[in-house]
């Protein structure tokens, strides 16, 4: 059931919940997934995102999100200047990303250590988003709930070990999905929770030997 503040809200920088607020949210999630200091970011805008991007401030919102500004942050208007101050290079490209939602963007982040991280997501209306790919691996989540994403070795028992940590801290898992490219490859788990996730919990999950990386998203 919707909260009354989904109806009267969110507070956001205009003009469009899908083209501005959703764009900021997508880039904020991308920034968390990347987790490293970003030196350069390339945005590949598809469909309606490409067509009306400037008139909706989609480009400022995307860049602002990469710099850590949320959808209600009025600095979004001046995010180009902030990017220069922070020393973050940026470029916008028009792209055909295939048979995807009209408001889809691919965000490619190059970090100061030379590593590259990629995310694809769509702004699906009302400021809500769906992430569909991280580093070319198909994945699905919305960022509506506190979300933990793991990269781990695809072996038996990992899901059970992770869920034991959740049970111990009495945090309920609302949704759990597992993704991999092929058997025995690196796999990913997306856990969306009903309650807040503590740093202790994240540390305990990181200590599981088969876990290569974890990302926590709470926006």
């Amino acid at each position, binding site marked *: 059931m919707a909260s009354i503040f989904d109806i009267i809200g969110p507070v956001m920088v205009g003009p469009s919940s899908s083209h501005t607020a959703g764009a900021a949210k997508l880039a904020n999630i991308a920034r968390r997934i990347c987790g490293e200091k970003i030196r350069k970011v390339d945005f590949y805008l598809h469909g309606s995102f490409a067509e009306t991007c400037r*008139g909706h401030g989609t480009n400022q919102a995307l860049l602002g999100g990469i710099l850590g500004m949320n959808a209600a942050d*009025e600095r979004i208007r001046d995010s180009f200047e902030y990017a220069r101050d922070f020393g973050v290079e940026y470029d916008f490209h028009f792209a055909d990303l295939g048979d995807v939602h009209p408001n889809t963007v691919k965000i490619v982040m190059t970090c100061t250590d030379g590593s590259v991280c990629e995310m694809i997501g769509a702004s699906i209306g009302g400021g809500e988003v769906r992430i569909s790919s991280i580093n070319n691996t198909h994945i699905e989540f919305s960022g509506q709930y506190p979300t933990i994403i793991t990269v781990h070795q695809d072996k038996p028992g990992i899901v059970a070990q992770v869920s034991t940590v959740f049970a111990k801290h009495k945090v309920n898992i609302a949704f759990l999905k597992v993704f991999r490219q092929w058997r025995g490859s690196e796999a990913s788990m997306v856990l969306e929770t009903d309650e807040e996730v503590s740093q202790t919990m994240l540390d305990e999950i990181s200590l599981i030997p088969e876990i290569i990386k974890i990302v926590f998203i709470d926006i």
Partner: protein
Amino acid sequence: MYQFSRARELLEICEKQNLELPDVVILSEEEEWGRSRDMIWDEMECKLRVMENSVRKGLEPDFKSTGGLIGGNAAKLNSYLSYDSLGGKVINQAVAYALAITEYNAAMGKIVAAPTAGSSGILPGVVIALKDEKQYSHEQIINALFVAGGIGKVIASNATLSGAAGGCQAECGAASAMAAASAAYLGGASPRRCVQAAAMALKGLLGLVCDPVAGLVEVPCSKRNATSTANAIICADMALAGISSFIPFDEVVDAMFRIGNMMSDDLKETARGGCAMTPTALEFAKTFRGSMMKS
């Protein structure tokens, strides 16, 4: 239990437990999300502060929207309106505030989506004008916003609040219904009368399409906020006069949803129909895209 998805259920809870509309809306929020009444009240106060700030900023005479199609209209109406203006002071003040918010929104200002950014002028326009012109208390205004939230929740639960899914009737229509119920509440209407105001307001805007010029949230969005604001106040007055909607609110919501499903995609935010396909709009869109690609 205070949960409702239909207006009929909302009214039953009010009448059985002898509660006002905002009480039931707050109690249902407490129950569903496990938050205290104080937290919920404070959050709505924050929303009102953002609304008031966006009115004030939007009334300043000289700023331009990102698309460049609107700006300055709120200031014009605000300096024109008086007790002598044709529509009277309250309606024109509410419309000026609604224009202010939509112009500020189009200039990347901070607003409250109520229920969406594209329809964000209507509810604040109505309640803030009533606060200024009729001296309702701060507490009454917050309660009026909860009434609007309850009406919006019924529409969200049974239809849609998205222009891309249901056309402008789902955005400005819904906002106008929410604002009508708020205004009727402030005018002293019973819960049942408030819902009547909402029914008449939504019914009056059924079939409204979403046809934004060049895909921007500017034309005709800003002035549709203006007319939907006046619509809300007129419907609240009709409800207070004892006029009822022949079609109950819940059925009007169902009709809105079905109309949205029958509506061509060309008329649902895609800028492929209506105002967006007029020669003037197409000419603008061509030069606008050209200038955007270059800059």
